[in-house]
């Protein structure tokens, strides 16, 4: 285990954080795992790197891919990489950064909010209806916009 003193004092820490921020989510590749709020802790020691990830949904099949992506993305730092998952704090949709929300909206996925407040990511209308709470992945719901008559997806608020 990395001691507290070792955390954040290593000059390479910033580079490692930047490398993490470049790793896309496999199911929503326009957003990085950092912008999705999945990184709970990054510990950098001279003898290794430990990344603690918060699963968005418990049974999310993308988790194994994310684990491998982190190991590969940080391999260049020449230290052992340990990826852990934790429920110590729950991942919630509030953890998505403003940049992450903007990137989702840009590809037509409404950022998470209470169902009553969902707006169409294409035309910003509030005249939307939920077709189904369940969508193509565990984290998404299906909506329809009555104003521009486009279907769209919204991230579930959890």
């Amino acid at each position, binding site marked *: *285990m*990395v001691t507290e003193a070792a955390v954040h004092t290593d000059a390479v820490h910033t580079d490692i954080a930047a490398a993490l921020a470049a790793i896309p989510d496999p199911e929503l590749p326009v957003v990085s795992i950092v912008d999705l709020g999945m990184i709970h802790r990054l*510990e950098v*020691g001279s*003898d*290794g790197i*430990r990344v*603690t990830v918060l*699963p968005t*949904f*418990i*049974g*999310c*099949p993308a*988790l*194994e891919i994310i*684990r*491998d992506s982190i*190991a590969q993305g940080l391999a260049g730092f020449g230290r*052992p*990489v*340990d*990826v*852990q*998952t*934790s*429920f*110590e*704090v*729950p*991942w*919630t949709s509030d953890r998505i950064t403003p940049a992450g929300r903007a990137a989702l909206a840009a590809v037509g996925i409404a950022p998470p909010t209470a169902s009553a407040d969902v707006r169409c990511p294409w035309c910003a209308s509030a005249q939307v209806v939920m*077709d*189904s*709470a*369940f*969508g*193509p992945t*565990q984290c998404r719901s*299906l909506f329809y916009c009555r104003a521009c008559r486009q279907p769209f997806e919204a991230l*579930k608020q*959890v």
Partner: protein
Amino acid sequence: MTPTSANADADAVIATPIAPPVAGLTDLLLSMADDEFVIGFSDSEWTGIAPILEEDIAMSSLAQDELGHAAALYDLLATIAGGDRDAIAYDREPHDYRHARLLDHGRGDWAMTIARRYLYETADAVRLTALVDGSWAPLADLVGKIRREERYHLMHIGTWLERLARAHGEPRDRLLAALTILGPDAATVFTPQEDEAALLAAGIVTRPIADQERDWRNDIEPTLRGLDLPIPPLPHDPERGRSDHGEAFRWLHGEFTMVRRGDPGATW
């Protein structure tokens, strides 16, 4: 830093919790995990054949959530009892599974699926409430996360129950038939647990099972009365609510162990 290097523990979802030596914890985790596994697997049978496309997606998503919960609970069990989640999930004989008999009736028609899920989800919600403030953090944290997902399940299944109950003719008739079959087994989710007193004393569970059952009845009875649906009776044999699984489960067990038995020890 411990030299765990890249993914020494790649399959574990839970990061090395320290287990308290409390009797009954194994049985509690196994019961919960088996419940989620069996209902998740049963409902995954609708994938591709649900009545409408949105429901096909919804039921598949619900099933995926439950299998995820089961996997995380089996992982937690493995940290205190040994083995790994796949071995626990797949390498037991049918009579060793500890799920509630409510889940033993086969998939049935859509009304059976909705009735079973309504009875199970409402009971599971009460059980989770009795665990979320528990003293063992690895379980309490996981339960906190599970509840956030189950909220969507409760909303969805409540809507369907009402939809079938308020429809005249065949939908309502089928729902009534399903509740008649499932009703006597509904409370088996609250089957008395081995060493429950130890779990309560340790604060891992914060409400006795008998009280949980009462909470559940208080929760569902107004809904069922409002829809003029029958109230589940008391179970015939409460002590055996998580055993004697019967033919429908033996068939399901054959299905979900088929690949595993086909190539034991295979790496995926």
